[in-house]
Structure formats: C-alpha cells, structure tokens
C-alpha cells in the first residue's frame, strides 16, 4: 500500500522521532530520522526521500533554514514537506498557524501542516495524499 516510499522524519525530540518512525513503518514506509537541519540535509543528499516531516522549532539548527535550502535546490524542491510544530497561532488553532506561515514571505508555504500533538490518522492521511496514494483527506 505504501510502495516502499521513503520518509525522512526531522525532529530533535527522540521520542517524537521514534513515534513517527514506528507509525510510518507500521504502515509500510521506509523511515529515516534526523535530529537537526544539518543531519537532515545530509540524509536528503545521501538518499532522497519521497516526503519529509519537519519540526520547525528545533533549537540547535533552524528547521526553517533547512526548509529554505531544500526548496532552493532543484533536485529536492519537489519533495513534499509537512511542517510539524508545537508552535501554534494566537488562538492555538492550526488554521491560525497555517495563516501565520503563509504570511511569512521569506519561506514558501509548506505542502501541509500538522500541529502537535499529532493525530496519527490525520498524519497518515496527509502522507498518502501528498504521495498520491489516494485516501485523501
């Protein structure tokens, strides 16, 4: 059902990495983890993933910087990226946050957005849709 698609999970929280890895693996995806932007960039170069989930609020290396580099790179700019973050807008609603990122002109809007705490069904649905595997939500 997943056609062995590769997902790169970028999050500095090992537990979140483990959680998402297991979630995706359990649904037939091949998963790789990276704890910061640098590791993530290396992972993308080594083995181009089909999709990336990216935590934007990592302290050491900015997730935004990694995202900008990926989107600027002709080989990688088409990889769909899902933003995962605990930072939400003034009312805490994901819709607000999406508007917030969309309003920040210096970065292109993400392909999708998931707020922590992550709803596994929502996440899987997004992944399937972005990878063109039907079951869109």
């Amino acid at each position, binding site marked *: 059902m997943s056609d062995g698609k590769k997902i790169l999970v970028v999050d500095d929280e090992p*537990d979140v990495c483990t959680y998402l890895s297991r979630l995706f693996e359990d649904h037939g995806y091949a998963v790789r983890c990276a704890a910061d932007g640098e590791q993530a960039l290396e992972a993308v170069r080594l083995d181009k993933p089909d999709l990336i989930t990216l935590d934007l609020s990592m302290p050491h290396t900015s997730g935004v910087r990694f995202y900008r580099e990926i989107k600027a790179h002709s080989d990688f700019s088409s990889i769909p990226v899902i933003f995962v973050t605990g930072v939400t807008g003034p009312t805490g609603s994901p819709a607000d946050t999406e508007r917030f990122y969309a309003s920040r002109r210096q970065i292109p809007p993400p392909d999708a957005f998931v707020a922590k705490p*992550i709803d596994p069904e929502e996440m899987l649905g997004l992944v399937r849709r972005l990878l063109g595997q039907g079951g869109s939500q």
Partner: protein
Amino acid sequence: MSENALVSAAKLRAVEQACGRLFDEVPYYISIQDREFRILTANRKTWEDFGDCLGEFCYRVYKGRSAPCPECPVARTFADGCEHSSQEKIFDRRGLPRDVLVNTRPLRDPSGQVLAAMELFTDVTVQKELEHRLHDSLTRFQNLFDLAPCFISVQDRELRVIEANRRLMENFSWRLGGRCYQIYKGRSEPCPQCLVAQTFQDGKPRCGEDVLVDRSGRSVQVVVHTAAIRDPRGQITGVMELCDDVSEIRALEDKLASLGRLVGGIAHSVKNVLEGLRGGLYIGNLGFRDNKPEDIRAGWEMVERNVARLSRLIMDMLYCAREASPRRLPVSPAAVLQEVFALYAERARQTGISLEAEADSELTLLAEPRDIHSLLSNLVGNAIDACCSEEGEGKSYRVKVRVARQDEQAVIQVEDNGVGMDEETRSKLFTKFFSTKGPFGTGLGLLVAHKVVTEHGGTISAQSSPGQGSVFTVRLPLQSPVAGAAPTATRGTTQ
C-alpha cells in the same frame, strides 16, 4: 459744628442749587463732609442706597463703625488740602457689601481755606467680583497645570519653553526659555519629526511616543500630545505639549509579554511531553497487537520518561509561580552539594563525567535549604548535560563545583568543559523560558536558579564560549539582605 462752618454750608447749598440736578443725577455716591466726618449733604443715589444720612458720621453710615476709620482719605484731605484716594468696602442700608474706589478733594472758600471735603465713591463691586473670579480661575488653572500627573509645557516657534508645569520643573533640568529638546533630551538640535513643529505648521493636534531623559538620567517613556494655542484672531501663538509618563505601563507590558512567552514555552514543552506519551502508548499498543515484548517495553519506557519530564516541568513551574519569601535557615552549601552529587552520581558514571568538589565545609548560609538544593541541582544538571551534548572523541569531561567564602559572600562556581554557549544563547539564559536541550530540558531550570538567587539577595552570572565549556558563578550574601534591598542579576561576559 462751628458757626463758620454753618455759614459755609449755607454757601455750599447755594452752589448745589446752582448746579441744578446734576449732582443728584451722577451714578456715584457723593457726599460732602466737615472735619468731624459729618455728612453735610449727599446726592440722591447715596440717599437711595444708604438712607437719610444728613448730619450722620460718614463712618457710621457707610461702615456701621462707632469711630473714624484708620487711614481715612477725608481726614488726609483736611490735613494737607490735597486729593486722596483709597479702596474701601462699605455696606448699604440692607447690609449688602459694596466695593468702592474712594476719591476725596477739598472744597475751599474764596480765601483758599478748606471748608469741607467732597467724598466720591465709585461702585466697583461688579468689577471686584469679576476680578475675584478671574483670580480664582487663574489659581485653579495654575493648580491643574501644576498638579496634572504629566509634563506640560507651552512652546514658541523656536521650541523655547515659555511655560512649564511644576512636575516638569521638578523632574527635568529646566530653565525658562530653554529649548524643549535640551530640557527633555539633552540634545543640541531639534528632534527629527518634532510634533510641536508640525502642530505649529498646520494647527492640528498630534500624538506620538517618545523617550525623555530626566535630570537623574533615567529614561522616561512618554506618550506625547500637542495642541495649538491661538489668539482671538486665530493666529497660533504657541503650542502646548503634554507628555504622559507611561514607563510603568510599558514595564508592565514587557512583563506580560515575557509571561506570554513563558506560557507559550511551557505549552510547547507540554505538547512535546504529550507527544512522547502518545508515542509510548502507540508503540506499546503495537507490541500488544503483534505480541512483541520489546515494543511493549520500549513504549512503556517512553511513557515513564515523559511522565518524569512532566513532573519536573510541573515542579519547576510551581517554583516559578511561588510568591512566598524564602525561610532563612542555616544551610551548608558543601553538604547540599554532596547530596546533589549523589543524585547525579549514576548518570555521571554512565556518561564518564567526573564530578569534582572543592567546597569549604565550614561555610554556612542563611537560606531556604530546598532552594539551595534546587539551585545546585539545576546548575550541576546543566553542566552534566553540557558535557553530554558534545561529541568530543577521547575528551575527558568533568564538572567542578567550588564553594568558597569571599568577604561577606558565599561564592559558588559550577564549571564544566562541555559544549559551551554562544553569545546569543548566553544572553537569553536568565530572562526567558529557554531550552537548548530538546527533550531533556524543561526550559525553566535557569529561571528557577535565577529566582532562588535573587530571592536570597544574590547574583548569578555565566561565562562561556562554544566548545570551551561554561562557568556559572553565584554570589549569595552570608547575612540576610536588608529588607527591600533590590536583588540584581548580572550578565556575564563571553570569554
């Protein structure tokens, strides 16, 4: 009355008749008096308002007195033959007071002898009343001007302060005619975008914000309002500038903003913990589903880890929110350090970090023992984390804590040779909810340390640079700080 005078009075009556009714018609009180201040004659207006006063003493008629007034202008006219004037308050037949201007002049016989004195009262009651009201409203205006809880000035086109209220005079290096920009900011030239100048240009009121510097050098944040002052023809003669001190409001806003960041940071932390808990449950459930004990164990460990993290976060939050002042009990920092080292011994052993102490065991503080424990465990825990965060092959890591007495202070230094911090990280240390440690930090540890130190009247600072490790230095007074003494936090320097 002497015989001569009676004769003269008869002559005067003749004069009066000659003047016809003019004497009666004038809108003043006119009377003619002899040397004893007896009224020989008076005009109709006097009769109307003061009754039949012929032959009565002036002072009795006008003031109800039983003796002549001191400084009587009639007496002076008799004495020197000249005209005199004064201001008096007299009372009419109904007892109503009237303010009058008094003029006296002598009436002479053909030989030049002063026969009598003419006394003329001009009723200025209405004018006096207006004068009083004007004075009252001026006083009221001046009081409002002076007591208004803001700085008010009136300026001319050259931005010279031509009027200033008391508050302005008291708070700024003020001199009449000084330029606004000198007084308020110590500048030598007008500020760019001067609101007063703009109001002079088009007469419209303006509002803005600015920062002034008062005479003690303190920055004062103000909201500025300007308004044109016009003469009766509508010409702008000056501009009033009103500066409202909003420093405290701004400080409060800053506090609220940092509280907002704190709450946001905590929410972020809680979300991550929640994520960890969900992940643990998810993996545990996979283990049950597939009958894989290693997954069950892994999930369970994740749950345990995140529950512990949540407990730490909540303890730190509770500590940050605590308002009670700490107790003052004798505490030995060296003994507390031993407990803290015991707490971290296992972790240090596993990670190969050596814990070293160089502590004066005689030193005793007056402090809240739990707080000192919390302070040291936060700092030592941070130091261990800093060592764990670096991937230095073959490097031997150590955390060294010194406790020593310096004058009247206990100095506690926690030094590590771990990952270190850059300037940006260091500058955020004690002020904001901040963690570089992802899952391992609550972001509150140094806020807690800072709170402990300031509540005990001490200071905390940090020195660090990337790759060089960090030194946190805490100074606590050995004596209880004087009540009300403001604790301070200092920021360290980057090596």
